């Protein structure tokens, strides 16, 4: 681009920063939400930082939740029978009310607070009204949301104290570590298969001359046009007959048999390698396999890396495949497990859902920063060669 005037340059940067903010904010919001206590996720207007509030109640320092801001002069009343405490406007409770006992007074601007984690299980949390100056607030990230959210993805109900732990039940006990492992298996085996098989097939198309090759290659390209929904129903039957339903095989094994797009990508690359290299090896008596393995592959690392990377991303992100073909909990991949976690009966809370999502996203982001160059070059290649 030619040199532009300063005003135009300023406009370009302003746009970039503004749009960059728009693109970045959702992920930041995910991170912030994942580190909040639950009641602060649902606040209006939303807050950007998680706070913890502490107060001295009855001589001890208590982690409290701010339930409500007092808006009119009120009294804190306690139900004599149940011990339940609530705010009532001053004058609304008769002094001789037999069921309600006044235990505190509050001015507007005070807070009704509840203890966050009662010390004893099953005990009623402390509930008080406090003036703002009695509450100490500070920014505190709740990192424990992460282990709690991941633990909640496990199917088994927590063990009951006093009851001996039951026999292990692999299907039910499967939790985050199992889902992570499954995803890694699907990704790694899929990547190995995709790289090897596509390279092999692409070699056959790019570097060997044989009758029928071009027709076959044309058919290969044509299959790229077939949308997955067309294959969905019969594929289910194929995997069923192979006995693969309920295992991870449908998610990685097909990668070992090539894919049209990757074959095409590799073939384009292989064709740019000078034919003389192969000829020289042939004259030395090398077999085609040897040429493929020792001459072509070492020169093709960039395209192999691109195929590996894209297959990894595909496998990590795939949702429809697992949704269709996985029937057993212990075979769930992270993508499916996350959705099942979100759609479980009773729902899931936002801070946990965001924490679990962040964990699913993190490996992809790490991978991006490790292999940034391959990403950018790979995408550029797929685009321009298409």
């Amino acid at each position, binding site marked *: *681009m030619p040199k532009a005037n300063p005003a135009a340059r300023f406009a370009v*940067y302003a746009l*970039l920063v503004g*749009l*960059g903010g728009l*693109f*970045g904010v*959702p*992920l930041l919001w995910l991170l912030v*939400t994942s580190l909040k206590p639950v009641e602060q*996720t*649902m606040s209006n*207007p*939303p807050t950007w930082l998680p706070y913890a509030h502490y107060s001295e109640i009855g001589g001890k320092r208590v982690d409290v939740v701010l339930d409500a801001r007092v808006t009119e002069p009120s009294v804190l009343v306690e139900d004599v029978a149940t011990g339940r405490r609530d705010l009532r406007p001053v004058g609304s409770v008769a002094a001789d009310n037999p069921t309600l006992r006044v235990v505190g007074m509050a001015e507007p601007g005070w807070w009704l607070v509840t203890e966050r984690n009662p010390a004893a299980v099953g005990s009623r949390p402390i509930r008080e009204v406090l003036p703002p100056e009695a509450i100490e607030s500070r920014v505190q990230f709740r990192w424990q949301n992460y282990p709690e959210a991941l633990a909640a993805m496990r199917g088994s109900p927590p063990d009951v104290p006093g009851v001996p732990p039951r026999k292990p039940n692999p299907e039910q006990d499967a939790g985050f570590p199992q889902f992570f492992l499954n995803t890694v298996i699907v990704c790694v085996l899929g990547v190995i298969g995709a790289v090897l098989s596509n390279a*092999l*097939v692409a*070699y*056959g*198309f790019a570097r*060997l*001359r044989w009758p029928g090759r071009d027709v076959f290659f044309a058919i290969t390209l044509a*299959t790229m*046009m077939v*949308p997955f*929904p*067309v*294959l969905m*129903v*019969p594929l*289910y*039957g*194929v995997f069923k007959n192979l006995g693969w339903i309920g295992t991870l095989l449908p998610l990685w094994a097909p990668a070992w*048999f090539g894919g049209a797009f990757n*074959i095409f990508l590799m073939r384009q690359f292989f064709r740019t390698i000078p034919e003389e290299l192969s000829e020289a090896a042939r004259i030395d008596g090398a077999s*085609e396999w040897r040429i493929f393995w020792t001459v072509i592959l070492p020169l093709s690392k960039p395209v192999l890396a691109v195929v590996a990377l894209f297959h990894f991303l595909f496998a*990590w*992100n795939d*949702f429809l495949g697992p949704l269709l073909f996985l029937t057993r909990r212990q075979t769930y991949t992270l*993508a499916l497990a*996350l959705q099942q976690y*979100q*759609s479980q*009966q009773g*729902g899931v809370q*936002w801070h946990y*859902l*965001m924490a679990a*999502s*962040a964990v699913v*996203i993190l490996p*992809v*982001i790490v991978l*991006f920063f490790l292999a*940034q160059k391959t*990403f*950018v070059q790979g*995408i*550029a290649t797929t*685009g*321009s060669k298409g």
Partner: protein
Amino acid sequence: MKSAARRRVLAGLGFTSPWIIGLATFTLYPVLASLYFSFCDYSILQQPVWIGLENYQRLAGDEVFWIALRNTAVYAALAVPLGVIASLGLALLLNCNVRGLPIFRTLFYLPSIVPVVASSMLWLWIFNGEYGLLNASLAPLFALWGGAPPAWLGDPAWAKPALVLMSLWGVGNSMVIYLAGLQDVPRELYESAELDGVGVWRRFWHVTLPMISPVVYFNFIMGFIGAMQIFTQAFILSAAANNGDGTLGSPARSTLFYTIHLYSTAFQDLRMGYASAMAWVFFLIIAGLTWAANAVAERRVHYSS
């Protein structure tokens, strides 16, 4: 000679053998089986029974089929052009010789590799009508003329735009493709255009766009095929919006896209024959539209070499 020819064929078949098996098992057989099933009453639990054209005839009169088709068309008509504009726009900005290019590129690109399931969860939260970030930001704007921002995923009129918005967040991938295309445009072309005193807008229209038209075409086709097959986001967002009562495409079928309807017909109602007929109609529609786009491209797209 003859044996040499045979050896060549054997070598060729040998190297492509994984693909021969893969193509037959995972593509050709399913395509043919799907075609066969589309003429059957078939539930996978029971045997396929040949019923001729009945599935196709029923499709024509199936209101929900048309709703799904229309939803998909509306979504694609919004998402594809907007996606092309957004990604090309970002690429043009980044191509302005800016400092800090890698940082901006990363910022724009990262969302496109976020797993769709996870980004769906994130947008589910952002689109929340009451506590969502989007409405919190929009509320003051709407308050100016006394309105309130829409409930997005809860509102049939806004659920599709919400999904389009979400798709725009993921344009980073095509942006990188455009950027590579833009960087391949020979510098001399710009320089000579500048010498001729051509303005920025005309330069873009007469130099840049023709030069990158193959890339635009590629992105357009990929975007179109992707948009027509939208599934995961819509599946998750609509399932979440209705408390899981098994109705996909809520609210009020506004996000019942073709693939969602197909999935539900096949795997929820186990009407595999009918679903196969739907799949084939879908196949023909996509193939037809791609062919039409190709025909237009033949005349408009400028291939340099």
